[in-house]
């Protein structure tokens, strides 16, 4: 029962995006480290970002705002953020609050590559 963990996968030339997995709870406490790590990654030039939410058990408004901030920054650079397989609990929060109209959410890993529509391309 780890409270929070983030795995940043190394760049992989077989796809155009960078992948991270976030595990546990993204609340107003753990979000601080999450934002720092991901904005560092964007500083490195990443414009297409995939965040695997399949093991995220909780997200608070602070976590949602962090995802909003990443979305804004990536889209400004012609990139995008894609969220992979959120748990039913997290997906329901997105749905109820209306964030399913804002975030790009993908249920099938095979559709990730196609879902990045911006022009930015990097590994």
């Amino acid at each position, binding site marked *: 029962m780890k409270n929070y963990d983030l795995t940043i996968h190394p760049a992989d030339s077989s796809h155009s995006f960078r992948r991270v997995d976030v595990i546990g709870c993204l*609340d*107003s*406490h753990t979000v601080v480290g999450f934002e720092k790590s991901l904005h560092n990654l964007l500083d490195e030039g990443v414009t297409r970002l995939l965040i695997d939410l399949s093991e995220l058990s909780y997200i608070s408004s*602070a976590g949602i*705002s962090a995802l909003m*901030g990443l979305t804004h920054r990536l889209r400004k650079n012609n990139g995008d953020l894609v969220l992979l397989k959120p748990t039913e*609990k997290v997906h329901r929060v997105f749905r109820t609050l*209306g964030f399913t109209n*804002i975030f790009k959410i993908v249920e099938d890993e095979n559709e990730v590559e196609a879902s990045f529509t911006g022009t930015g391309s990097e590994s």
Partner: protein
Amino acid sequence: MHNLDLEIRSTIEPHVLGVLRAMVTSVSTQAGFDEEAVAQIEMAVDEACANVVRHAYKHLGYSSDFAGEEQCDAALPRLFNPQDESDVHLTLQICVDEEAICFRIIDSGAGLESHTHSRMGVESLEEYIEKGGTGGLGSLIIRNFMDKVEYDTAPNGGTILTMTKYRQRTTASST
């Protein structure tokens, strides 16, 4: 579950948010709320408690927003240290009865600014996005997920947030 009253007092420590969520989830589940309602209650209470941790004692320098964890903790008063009778803490009261579950989140902090008092955070997702998607979502979540929400100023100047979820009524639903 029949009637149950609980009161939790805690020091201001970011880790307490996870502990309070575990407790709130357990009480709500045992009180008979379904999974979706429990998740909404968990989130609303977490937002309220996070606001205490982040905002209420900012003027004293206790905030997970602008202090590194170590600096922040060093200065933290202890609840059970008789030498430290300062009033920097978070109180969460939980009442369960036949009709509803009710939470009261109390701090002795700086209080709400008078303009936020009447109108907390953002009013809608549209307003949230217009304002750049940075703040105010917590209050929106609280209002959307609970049936009754009330902000008061405590006699000592702190904030009292009372929120209720009724057993039958449904609030914002995902379907």
